[in-house]
């Protein structure tokens, strides 16, 4: 067996960052809980401020914690085995994210295949349609809900199609950047990575424009416009949050590239950001098919 596999594994000394992170999550949960609870009543809420403090603390924690890790890595404390731990950890984290999206895709498919037709009397639910919702006709996208709320469906052409092309291209450019890094061609890495970040940013701007269009008087497509609006905004919204996070990761990696970090063999942070980027890309393709086209 290769002697490299017998390297000493780096176990970090004590760290206060996990505790900072725990307190930050506590503030976020308390703040968000209080803020959300007072939404309906409209009473004065301190929750929003606590929430902002918590988010700021999370950013501080991530910055400090990752600085420690980068510092240790640059000091040569990490081994190949450590690198494997990080890679496997990131892979399983992405898998958990996949399952989070699966819950919402599941809700979308359940509504389309089961609950909406059933409300119109499909299957053995004849009386549900006849007695409870006699006015209701099943359709997808559900532009008129059983209680009569009306909305408009978002088409797949136009902005969504452009966004799909943008994101697919960005996955390719991210891959080019990766290949360039493995060949140690630094200027090419900067170019392709910069282009990826730019495409991601444009995607997010267009997504905001699409939301503005949806919320306009013309479309009246809101978060609470029945199950179509629910699944549309929850899926694209959570995806947008992940694109934002992915873009931030890419920007951090870009800054580290500018500082001369990473080698052609050792660039876990780059790989992690790149994997994450491909993951949000794949989710978008599924979104485009199941939310927009079909």
């Amino acid at each position, binding site marked *: 067996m290769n002697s490299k596999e017998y390297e000493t594994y780096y176990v970090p000394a*004590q760290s206060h960052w996990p505790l900072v992170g725990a307190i930050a999550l506590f503030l976020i949960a308390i703040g968000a809980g209080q803020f959300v*609870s007072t939404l309906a009543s409209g009473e004065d809420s301190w929750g929003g401020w606590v929430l902002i403090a918590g988010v700021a603390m999370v950013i501080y924690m991530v910055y400090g914690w990752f600085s420690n890790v980068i510092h240790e890595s640059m000091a040569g*404390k990490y081994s190949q*085995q450590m690198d494997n*731990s990080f890679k*496997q950890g990131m892979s399983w984290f992405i898998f958990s994210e996949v399952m989070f999206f699966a819950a919402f895709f599941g*809700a979308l498919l359940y509504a389309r295949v089961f609950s909406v037709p059933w409300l119109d009397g499909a299957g*053995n639910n004849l009386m549900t349609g006849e007695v409870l919702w006699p006015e209701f006709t099943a359709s997808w996208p559900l532009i008129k809900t059983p209680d009569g709320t009306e909305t408009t469906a978002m088409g797949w052409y136009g902005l969504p199609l452009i966004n799909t092309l943008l994101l697919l291209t960005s996955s390719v450019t991210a891959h080019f950047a990766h290949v360039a890094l493995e060949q140690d061609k630094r200027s090419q890495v900067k170019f392709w990575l910069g282009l990826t970040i730019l495409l991601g940013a444009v995607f997010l701007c267009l997504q905001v424009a699409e939301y503005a269009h949806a919320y306009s008087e013309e479309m009246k497509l809101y978060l609470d416009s*029945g*199950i179509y609006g629910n699944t549309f905004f929850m899926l694209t919204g959570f995806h947008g949050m992940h694109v934002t996070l992915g873009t931030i990761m890419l920007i951090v990696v870009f800054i580290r590239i500018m500082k001369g970090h990473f080698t052609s063999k050792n660039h876990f942070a780059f790989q992690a950001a790149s994997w994450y980027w491909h993951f949000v890309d794949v989710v978008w393709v599924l979104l485009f098919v199941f939310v927009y086209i079909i």
Partner: protein
Amino acid sequence: MTTDTIHDTDHQHDDHHDHKMTGIKRWLYTTNHKDIGSMYLWFSFIMFLTGGAMAMVIRAELFQPGLQIVDPDFFNQMTTVHGLIMVFGAIMPAFTGLANWMIPMMIGAPDMALPRLNNWSFWILPFAFSILLMSFFIGSGAPNFGWTFYAPLSTTYSNGSTAFFVFAVHIMGISSIMGAINIVVTIMNMRAPGMTYMKMPLFVWTFFITAYLLVAVMPVLAGVVTMVLTDTYFGTSFFDAAGGGDPVMFQHIFWFFGHPEVYIMILPAFGIVSTTIPTFSRKPLFGYSSMVYATASIAFLSFIVWAHHMFTTGMPLFGELFFMYCTMLIAVPTGVKVFNWVATMWRGAISFETPMLFSIAFVILFTIGGFSGLMLAMTPVDFQYHDTYFVVAHFHYVLVTGALFSIYAGAYYWLPKWTGYMYDDALSKWHFWCSLISVNLLFFPMHFLGLAGMPRRIPDYALQFADFNKWVSIGGFAFGLSQLIFLAVVIKCIRGGEKSEAKTWDGATGLEWTVPSPAPYHTFEKPPKID
């Protein structure tokens, strides 16, 4: 053995030694898997007593018919928070604590793969449960919609506690996912050279598979609580027919998480008794590889049985049949396991130390819980059992005499390794026998109550159920008090006693018994050699 050839430079020795800080900072900032394991175990025991106190309130109210002690709304808060605390606060962290303590020692690793993340996974838990418990004192009280928080009870008819509940569950989920990722990565990446997958102790195998289940389903729980949140506060209608959704959809998504969750709480128990029974039978585990495959089969099947919790919701006939047969299929790998445990004991030189007593009780009583599970799996008869005390009896047999008893078996088994002292044997036997008798008095009559039609989650009941309920309550109080004996045993064991050897049990196998007792702060900084 060629060890530490490349990176074993001096600064790493600085990091490894002399960092056992004293005082509170040791625990707050620790990256040591043994410290974190101990914190998990203590936290889970505190939560166990907290959830247990709520169970005492429930049993006090149900001691006799009529409303005596608490009002129905508070009773509902008790049943809800009791369930949440026992599932997410007591059983799961106790297993994670055992995993933290034992897995690195069993596979010859210096620590968990991601030590700082490990500390984060633990420290967010006390905060999550503070939020859950705080909700008793905010607004109109704690969650009262059952630990399964079915819509529309948790949405349209929520008492205002939904937001805090949702965010607390989010934090518990983050903790579980991060903890599970750590376990998976540790097992995949940190095994000592020569320890192939099929040489791993079965304890490690069960945690490996459990961690996969956690990574797969905890995000689904996060998804469904998020939908509950937006349905309650942001006007979405995932679980509201008026907007095209369906309350039954809640149950599908919840139980897609919830059924694997059940196995998350029992697979590690299988791992523990598969460790203790061979030790005290002085025989190797019968059918090691079949145990591994059975565990994996149970994990796979756990993803396709969720709707057996929903037979009475009016599913299409095909669904009822599919979920009934898949559920019954689980009895096959589980039967393999029970057979193997019995076959391990067969003609063994058995001795009845406390961990073995708990393990044998586990095998018998868990099997009772398994059989009542089979009864519940049959769709036609489930229409009678559904939402009765029969269900309560079933899942308490698998969770209390199953999961909890295995945790006790594991705790007694490794206490000498953790503390360096032997526990008080007489006191531990008192703990076992008091628990065994009272737990059966507590849960066995619930089967009859359920078959006779007593519904679960009610503060009052019809007169004909009075006698059994009286005995159940007496059993409940006795069981609750018996657990204090365990606390006494543990404290006594930490403070001193008869010194334990490195290998406490003569029949024990495994790397953890090759290090001294108590286990040094850092073990296996250089990997041991596995043949």
